């Protein structure tokens, strides 16, 4: 995020794009609600009536998969009506004229049939965003989980650049990261293309710096993105390039990745699978080795918040049983494989890391303690450098000439559109209470009592009526790739023709249906769009029994003790 999360509530206008704060991050949603109470204008772009849509000034309830057409049309209006910040464009950006050539054709009238939003409403939204200062954009998975994702992120950045909404507090553009510490994972280089601190593996000087520090030769090639793994196991002809071993931790691809049938086949065929997690999960069923890990509260270290804030987290209790924290497991495996790692504590690891990363160099444990966290970049170790709450101060961007680049692209539709056989669309979403694949929250009894298997499919009441479905009825939902059973939830908050499911359920596993169509740059799958069909199940008694049997089966396979004796 270019801004800090506390700044959200002081924006003049919030363009909330494909971001459902109330369900994904109630703590950020609280800032949105507070901002609203202070008079912040809200434009919400979402195909569903989310909690933010409910309190917005303008809700653009667009057709799924039309993001870039809408963003380009808003840019068109801002340009055509002269609402741009010309001085900012002149002094701090490049590529504006080329960008205008792309957006020229995106009149609101052109976008209307694509987005299903009336042209005048697009005009109103563009005017509100461009004329209310400071204006902030928050976006979420509703932008990132499409095959055209990075283009939309750049499109949103174009809006902020055109209107001069960078370089001060409560403005800019904020990807509110999907998961706790996913920002930290990226910061630490858990990406195929970078070392910690976003230092690219293909740059020779950077590689040499890390080779010197670690005393080993390092590869100059970009690694394999997680979403390419099934293909590299199943279809790679070259024996040397094929993946033979897969070490997975804090991740449950057999639940969270698209097209689960393919993921299962890949895990099955892979010669050696190691799983490291705090509880048993679906991926664990395919593991050759399971390494039990510690949970938050049983270990300590540093998390990064979505707004680049490093925060210390601490151990509350000693873990029981034969458990080690992740960093110790990694160090021992590395040592066993011939590269000894002898760290005494997390601070030693942290200090080594920040000394290799110029933009983190000043974020010492001492400062993290004293200031209750530090937002990077923080380059200087002196106590005066307290980090950077918002980026690009004074319009100086992180490029060689400090100028931002406009980047225009044309909209294209999602890969798999509705058709005769699969006449509805499916998008995967979040619901508050259960987090991610439910490895943690599914083991919290309270949250399990609130919502349990097999989850829900949200549908418009008209569609439910047409298919003769009642609330709570078990239904079968199918795509080209697979099917699952879940419960029907009629709600006015979704449009006819669209369905929405959360991806955490073992039985109602919507990723049986989703499609591994990837954004060419981020390699993120198109979780937000595929074609599906909903079928009524006539024998509901059978369906209820069947779901219970499936659930019991999985629990037995996982060796889960339900407290009622053996899980048999």
């Amino acid at each position, binding site marked *: 995020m270019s801004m800090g999360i506390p700044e959200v509530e002081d924006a003049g206008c919030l363009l909330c794009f494909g971001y459902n704060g*109330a369900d994904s991050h109630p703590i950020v949603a609280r800032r949105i*609600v507070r901002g609203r109470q202070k008079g912040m204008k809200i434009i919400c772009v979402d195909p569903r009536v989310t*909690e933010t849509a409910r309190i917005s000034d303008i809700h653009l309830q667009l057709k799924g998969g039309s993001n870039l057409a809408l963003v380009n049309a808003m840019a068109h209006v801002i340009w055509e009506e002269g609402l741009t910040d010309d001085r900012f464009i002149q002094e701090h950006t490049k590529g504006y004229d080329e960008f205008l050539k792309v957006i020229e054709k995106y009149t609101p009238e052109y976008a209307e049939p694509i987005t299903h939003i009336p042209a005048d409403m697009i005009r109103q939204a563009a005017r509100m965003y461009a004329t209310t200062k400071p204006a902030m954009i928050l976006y979420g998975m509703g932008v990132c989980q499409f095959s055209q994702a990075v283009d939309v992120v750049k499109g949103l950045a174009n809006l902020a650049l055109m209107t001069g909404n960078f370089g001060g507090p409560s403005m800019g553009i904020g990807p509110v990261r999907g998961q706790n510490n996913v920002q930290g994972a990226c910061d630490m280089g858990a990406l195929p293309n970078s070392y910690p601190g976003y230092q690219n593996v293909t740059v020779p000087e950077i590689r040499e710096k890390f080779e010197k520090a670690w005393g080993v030769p390092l590869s100059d090639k970009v690694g394999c993105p997680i979403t390419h793994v099934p293909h590299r196991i199943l279809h790679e002809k070259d024996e040397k390039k094929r993946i033979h071993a897969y070490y997975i931790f804090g991740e449950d691809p057999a639940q969270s990745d698209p097209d689960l049938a393919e993921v299962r086949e890949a895990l099955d065929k892979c010669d050696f699978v190691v799983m490291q997690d705090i509880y048993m999960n679906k991926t664990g069923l395919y593991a050759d080795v399971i390494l039990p890990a510690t949970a938050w509260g049983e270990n300590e270290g540093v998390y990064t918040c979505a707004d680049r804030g490093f925060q210390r987290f601490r151990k509350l209790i000693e873990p029981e049983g034969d458990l080690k924290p992740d960093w110790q497991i990694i160090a021992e495996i590395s040592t066993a494989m011939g590269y000894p790692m002898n760290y005494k504590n997390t601070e030693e690891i942290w200090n080594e890391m920040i000394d290799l990363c110029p933009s983190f160099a000043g974020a010492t444990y001492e400062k993290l303690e004293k200031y209750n966290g530090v937002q990077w970049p923080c380059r200087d170790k002196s106590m005066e450098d307290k980090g950077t709450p918002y980026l690009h101060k004074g319009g100086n961007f992180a490029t060689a000439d400090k100028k931002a680049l406009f980047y225009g692209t044309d909209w294209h539709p999602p890969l798999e559109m509705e058709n005769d056989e699969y006449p509805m669309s499916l998008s995967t979403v979040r619901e508050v209470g259960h987090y991610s694949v439910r490895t943690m929250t599914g083991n919290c*009894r309270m949250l399990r*009592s609130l919502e349990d298997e097999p989850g829900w499919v949200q549908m418009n009441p008209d569609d439910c009526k047409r298919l003769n479905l009642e609330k709570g009825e078990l239904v079968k939902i199918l795509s080209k790739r697979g099917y699952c059973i879940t419960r029907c939830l009629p709600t006015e908050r979704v449009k006819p023709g669209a369905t929405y499911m959360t991806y955490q359920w073992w039985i109602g596993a919507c990723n049986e249906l989703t499609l591994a169509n990837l954004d060419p740059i981020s390699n993120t799958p198109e979780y937000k769009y595929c074609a599906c069909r909903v079928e009524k199940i006539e024998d509901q008694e059978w369906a209820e029994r069947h779901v219970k049997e499936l659930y019991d089966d999985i629990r037995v396979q996982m060796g889960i003790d339900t407290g009622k004796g053996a899980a048999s």
Partner: protein
Amino acid sequence: MNYFVKGNPDLCIGCRTCMIGCVVVHEGKHIFEVDPDSYNFNPRLHMVKTAKISVPVQCKHCENPACMAACPVQAIYQEDHRVLINTDKCIGCKACATACPFGAIDIVSLAGTRQADGSERKVANKCDLCNNIAGGPACVRVCPTQALSLVTEEDLGGAMEKKRMEAARNAYMEIHPQNGG
């Protein structure tokens, strides 16, 4: 006057933390039972979501409670600014739930207790404003957006006075729009 908890749909984000908070304070350490069926998960308020509204709904602690009038065994009574159900006396006849105009009463099972047919005992359940629980209603305390508030006689009086002031100002403005109140 009886007190009640009021939800503000402009602040509510539909997260249901209030429902969890409610169960946690009423169940105490039972929430740590390994078997989820061995404790009561009976939230005394319910999140309602329509196309345009999200807000929890719960007992209004009426001054002339329809539930109390309907109860044939006098299990419902008023005490300490609230309407309460004596669960021991309750025979599970559902008259109160039917009578309540707000849908605030549920008939729920009590884990570990048995009724005549051997199944779990079922009784009427509703908001008790966290009777005998230190700190007041848990839903108000746990809400991340402060969307819930306990309304007392004093609050209600204050709010009415404010509304009357507003009405008076509006009446004046109708006659003298140029003076700006």
